[in-house]
C-alpha cells in the first residue's frame, strides 16, 4: 500500500514537472492529464470514491478536453513561443523553491494539531457525501448553479463577435 502511494506521488510530480518544462502546449495537456489521473489514484487510496469519480469526469473528461479543443482550434501547437530570459527563469525557480521551503516550515508538526474523530471508513462514499451536500450545504449548492449560469453567459458574451 505504501509502495502504491510513492509510485503515484512520483508519477504526479514527474508529470507536473513535465507540464512546466515541455515546449509545446499539447504535450503540456497530455502530461497534465497523466498528473490528474495520478491524483485520482490518490483519492481512491484515501477512500474518497465520490471525489475520484467526479475528478476523472470533470477534470480529465471535461476541462482537459476543452483545453485540447482550444489548442487545436487556435492552432497553437507551434513551438515558436518566445521564451523568457535565463535570469527570469532562474528567479522563477528560486522563488518557487523558497515558497516551498517556507510552506514546509510553516506546516511542520501538523500531526499534533489533528484531533482525530472516531475512524469512519464511509465518509467518502456517495451516500454519505450526498446526504451532507443536500442537508448542511444546500444553499451553497444552489448558489453554485447560479455561478455556473453566470459563467456560461459570460463565456457566450465574450465569445460573440463584435458587430462593429
Amino acid at each position, binding site marked *: *500500500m*505504501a509502495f502504491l502511494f510513492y509510485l503515484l506521488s512520483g508519477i504526479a*510530480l514527474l508529470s*507536473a514537472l513535465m*507540464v*512546466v518544462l515541455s515546449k509545446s502546449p499539447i504535450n*503540456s495537456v497530455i502530461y*497534465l492529464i497523466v*498528473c*490528474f489521473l495520478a491524483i485520482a489514484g*490518490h483519492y*481512491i487510496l*484515501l*477512500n*474518497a470514491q465520490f*471525489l475520484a469519480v*467526479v*475528478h476523472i469526469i*470533470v*477534470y480529465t473528461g471535461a*476541462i482537459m478536453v*476543452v*483545453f485540447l479543443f*482550444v489548442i487545436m*482550434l*487556435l492552432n*497553437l501547437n507551434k513551438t515558436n*513561443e*518566445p*521564451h523568457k530570459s535565463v535570469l527570469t527563469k532562474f*528567479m*522563477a*525557480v528560486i*522563488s*518557487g*523553491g523558497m*515558497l516551498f521551503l517556507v*510552506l*514546509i516550515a510553516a506546516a511542520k508538526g*501538523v*500531526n499534533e494539531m*489533528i484531533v482525530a*474523530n472516531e*475512524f469512519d*471508513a464511509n*465518509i*467518502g462514499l456517495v451516500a454519505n*457525501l450526498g446526504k*451532507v*451536500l443536500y442537508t*448542511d*450545504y444546500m444553499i451553497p449548492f444552489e448558489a*453554485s448553479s447560479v*455561478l*455556473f449560469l453566470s459563467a*456560461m453567459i*459570460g*463565456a457566450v458574451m*465574450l*465569445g460573440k463577435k463584435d458587430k462593429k
Partner: protein
Amino acid sequence: MENITSAIRIIPLEHYLFLCLALFSIGVIGVLFRRNTIVILMCIEMMLNSVNLLLTAFSAYRSDSSGQVFVFFIMVVAAAEVAVGLSILVMMKRNVDSIDINLLNKLKD
C-alpha cells in the same frame, strides 16, 4: 474495502503534505516560468488540484466529510473559471493574434 482504508493508517499525513506542497510550488514556478497563457491556466489548475488533494487528505484523516464537500465546490469554481478563462483567451487570440501574456501589460495602465 478494509484493504483500501488501511492506506490511511500506514502513510503519515506529512507525506501527503509534502506531496501537495511540492505540486503547489511546481504550479507557482510554472506561472512565473512560462509566457504562454494556456500553460499558465494549466498551472493554475494544478495548484487548485494540489489544494484539493490536501483537503481530501485532511478530511480522510480526521474522518470529517466537510473537507470533501469543499473539494466539490472548488471543482465547480474551477470549471466555471476554465470556461471564462478560455473564452478570454480565444478573444485575445482573435484581437491581437497572439497568446503571449506580456502583450496584456496594457491592463496595468
